[in-house]
């Protein structure tokens, strides 16, 4: 549903620019029931060219491996079987969203439906419905457009890039995510940047301060260009005033602590930027805290700018 608003023109038009036609889409196509089944059957039997099989949602394999938690309507057959059959013939297989990619929210807690991702079933890249060694006809593994929900641009741009040709394994990171967005961190371009620099932290929801120290923000670890490209025209999670929950990462659903609180040991957040020595981070944080301007400290605990930036008085003529 997030993709319907792609590029502000909608998914169909955004893809059409690259000669991409939707063979069948559950929300957009006219074909329903028997007509839809005819298309899916043709795809499963390799009688129609499928350049990309896009799967949304985790694959539910329960109960007891039967797949009966998720039957394809009108067929009495588990969705997992259909995915396997079509994947065999598809040029590319694309997991749309963290559920399809890594299992996502349905895997949380005890994983009551035995959910799995298409090719990655949990914290490790260790095979989901399709085995680790699976390669689609293009030679690529499952392309994981992670995110809960993924940015519509990630989907459109990945499919368009595939259509343009030359999309190879180097375009993907070690978890099969397109590097076009996964090489960034959600932290990049965060409008709370100044608060982060000074470790002027929000203490409660709606505070303008940095969300990392107290309110659970994982943007410094989360793959994504959320704050560079923005969502729905103007927004992002951190701009909206709430924590990044690292939704592009496998296992984000069970990070071991409540989502909206920062897990800490001895007062130091556990989830620091991964590629920065912890001691340095702590030292710099202490230093910057001591240098925090009063303006930044005050505004960090307000929902609007209370103290505006100081201005140099105009020079006397």
């Amino acid at each position: 549903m997030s993709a319907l608003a792609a590029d502000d023109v909608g998914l169909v038009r955004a893809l059409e620019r690259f000669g991409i036609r939707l063979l069948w889409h559950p929300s957009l196509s006219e074909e329903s029931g028997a007509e839809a089944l005819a298309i899916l059957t043709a795809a499963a039997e390799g009688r129609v060219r499928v350049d990309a099989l896009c799967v949304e949602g985790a694959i539910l394999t329960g109960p007891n491996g039967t797949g009966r938690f998720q039957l394809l309507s009108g067929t009495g057959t588990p969705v997992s079987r259909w995915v396997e059959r079509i994947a065999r013939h598809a040029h590319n297989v694309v997991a749309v969203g963290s559920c399809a990619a890594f299992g996502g929210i349905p895997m949380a807690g005890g994983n009551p439906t035995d959910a799995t991702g298409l090719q990655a079933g949990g914290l490790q890249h260790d095979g989901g419905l399709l085995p680790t060694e699976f390669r689609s006809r293009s030679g690529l593994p499952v392309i994981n457009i992670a995110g809960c929900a993924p940015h519509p641009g990630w989907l459109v741009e990945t499919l368009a890039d595939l259509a343009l040709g030359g999309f190879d394994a180097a375009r993907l990171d070690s978890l099969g995510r397109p590097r076009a967005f996964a090489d960034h961190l959600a932290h990049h371009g965060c409008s709370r940047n100044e608060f982060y620099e000074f470790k002027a932290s929000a203490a409660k929801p709606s505070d303008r301060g940095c969300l990392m120290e107290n309110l659970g923000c994982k943007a410094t670890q989360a793959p994504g260009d959320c704050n560079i490209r923005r969502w729905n025209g103007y927004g992002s999670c951190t701009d909206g005033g709430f924590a990044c929950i690292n939704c592009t990462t496998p296992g984000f659903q069970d990070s071991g602590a409540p989502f909206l609180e920062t897990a800490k040991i001895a007062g130091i957040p556990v989830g620091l930027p991964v590629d920065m020595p912890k001691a340095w981070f702590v030292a710099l944080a202490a230093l910057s805290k001591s240098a925090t301007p009063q303006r930044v400290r005050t505004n960090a605990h307000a929902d609007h700018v209370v103290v505006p930036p100081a201005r140099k008085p105009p020079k006397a003529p």
Partner: protein
Amino acid sequence: MTATTRLIVGPFNRVEGDLEVTLDIADGVVREARVTAPLYRGFEQILAGRAPDDALVIAPRICGICSVSQSMAAARALAQIAGVEPPPNGTLAADLVLACENAADHLTHFVLFFMPDFARAAYASRPWHKIAVERFAAMEGTSQRTLLPARARFLHLMGLLAGKWPHSLALQPGGTTKSVDPGERVRLLSILADFRAALEQVVFADRLETIAALDSAAALQAWTHAAPAEHGDLRLFLHIAEDLRLDRLGRGPGAFLSHGSFGLWPSGVVMDGETRSHDPAEMTEDLTHAWMDGPTQPDADKNGAYSWCKAPRLNGRVVEVGALARQMVAADPLARDLVAISGGAVKDRVVMRLVELARLVIAMEGWVKQLRPGEPFCLEAPLPLRGSGNGLVEAARGALGHWMVVESGLIQSYQIVAPTTWNFSPRDADGIPGPLEQALVGTPILPGETTPVAVQHVVRSFDPCMVCTVH
């Protein structure tokens, strides 16, 4: 007597999620219908044992189209447990976010899910078919091509107030996390003005105020014929509805439930011609024909079961939820008049959805102007270690309820009753069919139809969300 034949229709597309319908047909009409939700998701099990605030993250992820409705229900349940009430700005901003989702959903339903069926070749002989194809042919119609971008720009309101859509954490028990400055208030009004223009030009070919003020079937009839069929998509639909007698198709149970919304439309029940208040304690979930062993325990081998959907009943009765139900409970004169004539049919559901769309946008313009930059949007809402609360909300497609029990600081139990759980429920212990199952009886099936088009009109008129149904 003619032999009964059985037809299984699925995968049912242009509904959110997975749906299968089994029809027993005789003499060219549906005699009995069974509605199957073929997916089980286990969200209630996933929520149990977690930190209460985690519901704000997990519950909206039940659905990509009712996401904010689920957030709002979770936030309200938590607010009740914490005993807080958001400040006026917080209530206004949350209402704006929910109304934005409701309005976008109403438009999506009409343009993408419902109308494309009239562009089908089966209707090639009808006088309106050519315009229907031009405007609504799936993925190509001109109305779709104009209104989808308008919808996308309308959702910029979500970018501003909720960070993104779907799956925002901006809606908190104590209010909203994003304050609005004077410049942003102007941007919000610009977004609404842009959306208003698209609706007034394409959907209504009239002022929103004119549509919102329609107050009787006669007034609607007069408006329909005040201009040729091609003047506005609503008018086109009304001409089609007249031609195909959509006021006689898909009559529901005639009893309605609404949780009430935005202070515009009250909570209540309309049953046996009477309007009364809604008492959530009268609600029960019947599991007789659901593959469920207990409130949250699945049993795929259960005898006599045919759906993962439970059967909620109110005082043992089947009720319909949605825009028509909301307006019935609110004693809206147009809704009451339409239902008095038809009993609550396909046409009525679609009309009230679009009338509500007009009313929502007008209301949103007022709410933005009431926002007070500089005043608080959110209060702190510390939770006690134990407590229970419910969050009752109206999603676009009807009444949504969350029930949460907190014990020792963790969620002990979480129950969700979604709108389509009401509308697409299976039979109950007394064998009484659910609202859609009732509405499908009598639907005509044309010779040779494998995916009967009239059945599709009836099913889609409820604007089902199956993923919420089987949370």
